[in-house]
């Protein structure tokens, strides 16, 4: 599949230079674009295809209230959002602004609007662009110089990555054990191969457990491909993909829909295709995962303990472990379920979708957040927020003591006011547990939405497999 998508986008392969690859869609947000627009202005180059660009604001917008978002109190953040408005107007790019019904995290709105389609090449100045690979698109994050390159040429010079097949097999019909989710699959993979395990590769996820996942689950898996170092993650399109795509604003309609599906079907990997590397995962043996350290690869299961130094694979890893124990305020051997949390964050481009909120609400329903725990839900997009409110999920969260926020990236990276205080410990459905990621000195543990919800209720990490669901 990767091979086919790549070949269909080769503009030219000049001798001694990287391939010039055509880019079908560039997604734009406020943080990594201002210097790219400025570059175009300085060089006098036009933006070649405004219709292949779509923009939104997500990284630094406050999530507290609509009023707080229209004029951002943080002057520097406000200037950045204003710059995006001006740039989009000047260069003719459609912008889904804070007050727009379709605003959301850039990786949420691409699929929701039907902009993301199988077989496309998609880039964005954000590493979690790998999310869109769930549709069989080749999608990857780029830096600001490359953002400018795509604006000017609608292409990128690229050397071809290698291919990596990760086959995940589940139980009957691809089923996962109770309490195990797409998040646990990808955390297991990162724990297994390390945060540089897929550097230089595009991962293709296959196997019965992947086939059985919803599009939301597939997006969670592809989203965190970058956390294993991969250039991109991809899943071949199938009936689940087409059912999701049908009927969105920018999905083809009528006869064009049928013709499109026929093209998309042709992307499926031929049986017997070979890969540069393969990994097989038996998903029937997985348990809910929790990260304990300062890298997504420092992960263990809910029924385990903080690993000891001798479980580090290399000398360099030992140094990282020691540093992580200190930063995280944890001792090796501490059972994960004994670790108390101060904050819970439900959201992000990894787990801010409607299914994620449903899974968390199911755990929360009938309970209240533990004592001093600060818990918030930040839907990934306006569409998710509306849907959740229509289903009454907001009432479940609010009556349990969660804050119900406006959409954005929020505490996943803490560029807006949603941050942890030094030493504060957070159960987070996001994607990175780096030092200071959610606020200087903040301690992040990554887990699934249901597991985050359970931690919010009990005040410590809790095995959702033994949860007493009240509704």
């Amino acid at each position, binding site marked *: 599949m990767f091979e086919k998508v790549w070949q269909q986008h080769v503009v*030219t392969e000049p001798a001694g230079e990287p391939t010039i690859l055509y880019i079908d869609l560039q997604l734009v947000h406020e943080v990594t674009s201002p210097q790219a627009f400025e570059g175009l202005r300085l060089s006098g180059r036009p933006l070649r295809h405004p219709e292949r660009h779509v923009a939104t604001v997500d990284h630094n917008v406050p999530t507290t209230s609509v009023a707080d978002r229209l004029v951002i109190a943080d002057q520097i953040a406000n200037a950045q959002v204003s710059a995006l408005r001006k740039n989009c107007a000047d260069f003719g790019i459609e912008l889904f602004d804070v007050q727009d019904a379709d605003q959301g995290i850039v990786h949420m709105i691409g699929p929701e609007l039907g902009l993301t389609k199988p077989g496309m090449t998609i880039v964005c100045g954000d590493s979690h662009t790998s999310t869109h690979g769930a549709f069989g698109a080749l999608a990857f994050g780029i830096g600001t110089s490359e953002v400018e390159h795509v604006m000017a040429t609608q292409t990128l010079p690229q*050397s071809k990555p290698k291919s990596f097949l990760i086959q995940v097999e589940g139980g009957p019909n691809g089923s996962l054990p109770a309490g195990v989710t797409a998040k646990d699959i990808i955390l297991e993979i990162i724990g297994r191969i390390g945060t540089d395990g897929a550097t230089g590769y595009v991962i293709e996820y296959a196997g019965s457990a992947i086939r059985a996942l919803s599009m939301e689950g597939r997006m969670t898996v592809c989203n965190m491909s970058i956390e294993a170092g991969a250039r991109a993650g991809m899943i071949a399109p199938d009936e689940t993909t087409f059912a999701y795509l049908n009927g969105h604003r920018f999905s083809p309609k009528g006869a064009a829909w049928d013709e499109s599906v026929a093209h998309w079907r042709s992307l499926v990997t031929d049986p017997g295709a070979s890969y540069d590397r393969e990994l097989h995962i038996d998903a029937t043996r997985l348990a809910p995962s929790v990260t304990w350290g300062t890298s997504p690869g420092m992960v263990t299961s809910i029924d385990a303990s903080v690993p000891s130094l001798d479980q580090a694979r290399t000398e*360099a890893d030992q140094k990282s472990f020691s540093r992580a124990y200190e930063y995280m305020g944890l001792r090796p051997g501490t059972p994960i379920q004994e670790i108390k949390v101060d904050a819970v964050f439900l959201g992000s481009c990894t787990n801010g979708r409607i299914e994620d909120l449903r899974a968390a609400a199911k755990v929360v329903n009938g309970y209240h957040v533990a004592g001093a725990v600060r818990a918030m839900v930040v839907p990934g997009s306006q569409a998710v927020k509306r849907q959740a409110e229509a289903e009454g999920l907001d009432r479940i969260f609010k009556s349990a003591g969660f804050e119900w926020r406006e959409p954005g990236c929020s505490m996943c990276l803490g560029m807006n006011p949603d941050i942890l205080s030094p030493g504060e410990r957070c159960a987070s459905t996001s994607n990175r547990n780096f030092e200071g990621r959610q606020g200087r000195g903040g301690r992040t543990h990554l887990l699934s939405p249901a597991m985050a919800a359970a931690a919010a209720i009990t005040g410590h990490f809790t095995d959702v497999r033994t949860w007493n669901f009240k509704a």
Partner: protein
Amino acid sequence: MQSIKILTSTAAPLPLPNIDTDQIIPKQFLKRIERTGYEDFLFYDWRRIQEGPDAGKPDPGFVLNKPDYSGAQILLAERNFGCGSSREHAAWAIAQFGFRAVIAPSFADIFFSNAGKNGIILAALSEAEVQTLLQRSTANPKHRITINLEAQTVSDDQGFLANFPIDPFRKHCLLNGLDDIGLTLLHEDKLNAFESQRRHAFWLDPKPQNA
């Protein structure tokens, strides 16, 4: 982009693997819309004392705060340098602080690309070779390392000599300080032909006419 051929400099050792771009430049500095002025934000949190009465003051123990290492143009680190976020601000901060090269056993993909666009040489040596250089620069801050881009070698005056791989095109661009966009636009005829031949492929359009 500034061209670079041979670099001889002292080196600042950062003996840790998986140094992510959140550490290289924390998120609060990503709100700026300028392309310059990031040098003061490089390793912002690591450069400061985090706790106690002196919290916020420069941490004298951090390598970039040690006067002995000031002026170093080479950064030494362990495996998977630059992992995480795609923020090019990380490459800008490293370059604007004065580093022209990073030596490590491996680099994350997006950072690798960003570094190239900003004229930073990334020299990937073996774990053992990097350890040797880390030890020498830690023991002696005046230890000088030479990177010869043309010859693709890293050497010092104690007999260290190692080769590093580099894609010939990237090398050509670094040696000559070339602008990538200009290079791509040299192929504009091919691009026009590709777009013309592809114009009916609505199934790959973000916003097809028949939507």
